[in-house]
């Protein structure tokens, strides 16, 4: 059983620079991820963060977890530059231990990124688990289930790529069917380029932790949940994908095997299916809904 977490004040003298195109470092996803990172035995280790964002996690693992060196990259090339600046502000004494991989790096798909991954003990990541709502094939699947896209769901916020991934491009990965294609692609790359490295990944567990753990196992990792928190569902995040999954299974013998996990309360005591959650959103777009965020450590087996 995981311990209940408590809110902690910032250990940093200054606040990080956080433009609109960066994922908000005060978001409870980040808090949960850092609770997991604190339990991930990173002392003295070389860590690679896939998707450094503002650099807040890099500063945290250098300052509070005792990592020896941290590499990092991001799909948005502006973010790795931002991360460098922020780490110098947040933890100047550790800044020299951060080695960024510049440019736009999808997962670890550049030579420099792969070279650094090969020297890494632990890879950490919090990357999207929801397909891009406007994806052509995802739209066809949603429409086949007679599910409409929620109003405003197709609008692109500044930090859009921090929330959604191009679903069709990752269709070769089996767990793409439940929104884990990007994460599974990362697992396979790490298995190939750093077979002894551990993975520490942050997930919004709307499809349930069981299937996320199944994805780890199918890709050669022993999963362990090391942190968990019930968080408020982002009101702007489209959940029609999850509703489509439930509806596609409706009436089959597998419908009870995959029921999405939303909650009507912040304690996580009132479970809701995605279908029910969407009905509540349709009635009141501002209704507070919750889901679990969990940090899963994968140890190669």
């Amino acid at each position, binding site marked *: 059983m995981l311990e209940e977490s408590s809110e902690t004040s910032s250990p940093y003298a200054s606040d990080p620079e956080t433009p609109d195109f960066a994922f908000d470092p005060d978001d409870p996803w980040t808090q949960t991820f850092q609770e997991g990172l604190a339990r991930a035995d990173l002392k003295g280790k070389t860590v690679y963060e896939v998707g450094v964002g503002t650099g807040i996690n890099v500063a945290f693992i250098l300052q509070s977890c005792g990592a020896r060196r941290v590499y990092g990259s991001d799909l948005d090339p502006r973010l790795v530059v931002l991360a460098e600046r922020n780490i110098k502000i947040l933890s100047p004494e550790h800044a020299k231990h951060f080695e960024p991989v510049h440019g736009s790096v999808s997962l670890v798909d550049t030579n420099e990124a792969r070279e650094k991954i090969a020297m890494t003990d632990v890879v950490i990541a919090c990357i999207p688990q929801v397909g891009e709502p406007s994806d052509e094939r995802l739209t066809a699947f949603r429409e*086949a289930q007679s599910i409409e896209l929620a109003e405003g769901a197709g609008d692109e916020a500044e930090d859009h790529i921090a929330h959604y991934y191009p679903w069709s491009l990752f269709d*070769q990965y089996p767990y793409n069917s439940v929104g884990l294609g990007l994460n599974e692609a990362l697992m396979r790359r790490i298995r190939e380029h750093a077979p002894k490295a551990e993975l520490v990944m942050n997930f919004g567990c709307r499809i349930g932790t069981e299937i996320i753990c199944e994805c780890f196992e199918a890709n050669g990792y022993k999963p362990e949940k090391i942190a968990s928190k019930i968080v408020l569902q982002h009101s702007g995040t489209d959940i029609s994908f999850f509703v489509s999954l439930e509806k596609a299974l409706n009436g089959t*013998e597998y419908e009870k095997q995959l029921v999405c996990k939303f909650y009507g309360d912040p304690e996580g005591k009132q479970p809701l299916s995605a279908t029910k959650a969407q009905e509540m959103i349709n009635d009141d777009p501002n209704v507070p809904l919750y889901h679990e965020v969990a940090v899963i450590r994968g140890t190669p087996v």
Partner: protein
Amino acid sequence: MQVSNTIDCNGLSPAPTLLRIMQALVGREDSTSPLNVLVGADCNCESLAVSLGPLAQDVQLASDAKQFAAVN
């Protein structure tokens, strides 16, 4: 984007396997030949076919890709 005529569902449990097949069938442009679905050796293909309903006639399930070559 066109879907490949063979999809890999090896390692997936039944529910995501069924979803993956349904998603692939929606995305196909060529529906003249069956969709080849590679499943694990422990897959209950009969049960999967029942859940697919009428869609099952558009699908060829096998645990060894060589079986597809024999059929197509």
